[in-house]
């Protein structure tokens, strides 16, 4: 390009950048057009949706308060147990994997990759699918739910924890090493104090997510409030369904508020 041309016309991106952007836009538009033309949607169902929604809401109100103490409360407690035990159990598996995945603790590239593989595969499979797999192992019930939550959370907790570990200030670690401290002491006295705030916030955040996730695990039979929801729905007890939905909503909001409070106090 000559200077004359540059003076005539200013362009923000180079030709290849524009070409790449254009290619991305083209791919996106063609993907949307392809999906739009081939997806099997019956438009009549969409026109019908508002009246169907009205019908559903009419069936849902008033809420069936009497069902709460009978069946919902116990199942709700069970859901909270699934979320909490799942989160605690995750730590047992996620902490070693995070240590293996952090390059400043495990210098071996191969071990980092192996840990990465486990973390990615844990995240790629949805918690409902994990629940189905664990139901095949443990039978329907709370245990399958706990395992599903635990295995599903490994990827999330392990990845974020490994990133937090990789970001620590190595000065303290070197100082500890210079005193001749053992491997365990370096981990507990050097890494842990620096990682601790991140650790607590990751765990609390995941617990919050797990409360939401464990509420639906019961739909495939893995215990908790989802089982009650599924039963109520199959029996067309819409007033009970709405009561369950409202209780899930309240529990999720309370869990989020609790997490925010603890984080503010702790970190």
């Amino acid at each position: 390009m000559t200077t004359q041309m540059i003076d005539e016309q200013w362009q923000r991106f180079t030709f290849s950048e524009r070409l790449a952007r254009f290619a991305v836009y083209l791919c996106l538009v063609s993907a949307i057009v392809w999906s739009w033309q081939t997806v099997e949607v019956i438009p009549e169902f969409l026109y019908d949706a508002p009246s169907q929604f009205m019908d559903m809401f009419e069936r849902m109100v008033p809420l069936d308060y009497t069902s709460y103490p009978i069946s919902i409360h116990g199942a709700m407690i069970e859901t909270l147990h699934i979320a909490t035990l799942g989160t605690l159990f995750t730590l047992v598996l996620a902490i070693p994997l995070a240590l293996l995945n952090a390059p400043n603790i495990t210098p071996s590239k191969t071990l980092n990759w192996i840990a990465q593989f486990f973390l990615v595969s844990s995240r790629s499979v949805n918690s409902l699918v994990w629940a189905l797999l664990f139901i095949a192992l443990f039978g329907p019930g709370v245990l399958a739910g706990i395992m599903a939550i635990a295995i599903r959370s490994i990827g999330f907790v392990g990845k974020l924890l490994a990133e937090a570990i990789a970001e620590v200030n190595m000065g303290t670690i070197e100082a500890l090493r210079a005193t001749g401290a053992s491997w365990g002491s370096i981990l507990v006295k050097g890494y842990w104090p620096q990682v601790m705030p991140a650790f607590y916030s990751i765990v609390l955040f995941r617990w919050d997510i797990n409360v939401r996730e464990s509420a639906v695990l019961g739909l495939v039979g893995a215990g908790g409030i989802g089982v009650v929801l599924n039963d109520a729905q199959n029996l067309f007890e819409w007033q009970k369904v709405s009561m369950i939905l409202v209780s899930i909503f309240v529990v999720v909001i309370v869990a989020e508020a609790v997490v925010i409070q603890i984080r503010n106090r702790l970190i």
Partner: protein
Amino acid sequence: MAGLTQGLPSKTENPFKSSWTSRAIIAVIVAYLIYSFSTLGLTFERLLIGFGESDRLLSRMFPPDFSRSGLLLSGIAESLQIAIISSFFGIVISLFLGLLAARNLMPSIVSIPVRGFIALCRSFHPVIIAILFVKAVGFGALAGILTLVFASIGFIAKLFAEAIEEISFKQVEAIRATGASFVSVIVYAVMPQVFTRFIGFASYQLDSNLRNSTMVGIVGAGGIGGTLFSAFQRFDYDFVAAILMTIIALILVGEFLSNIVRRVF
């Protein structure tokens, strides 16, 4: 050496005493574990029996059965369609809602209700929204699309709003000083500052919609999830393994593509 060790009596206090709070946390966790295991009726034997079954399950899952590839491909295609359409609408709606929810551009009378709506979209798990939509619009891809549109709004509109709230206001003031209209302010002052982050959020959302679109089928909202769930119920574990491997491959390809998109922008 001998002189040194003499100066270190064993009575020296440990400079790193474990604090009472950490002891209390551990005690609470142990007490909780005992309590919850007893109320839920969990025993260690059940866990061991379950893990004992795992080699039987794995032997039935492998080798995966790809013979019903027609069913598999049509399910995957429907999941892809759900993910793409719902991401498109979810992102477009989120753009507007994100602008409306940004507290630095909008008066609070607009932003507070919009924020409430976004929070409502986020507080329910996609599967629960899917159940409601399956009731409203029947089984099939439409319910999945509507579900994921709502799920996308809950997540991405919030991030959009936060990104817009973090912009530098100098450029907005400069454009405003030229007498530009509101739309021009958005297009020339706000968008250039947040566009790259929007692309990042949008490609993340496409990824997550892809994951969720393989799942909403479990409650009847279209896609591969329905096929997966019925394969589970018929104990066709080799077909289950084939579906799972295809889903994981699809998700990895999706992550690869969204990395490319992020590099382009």
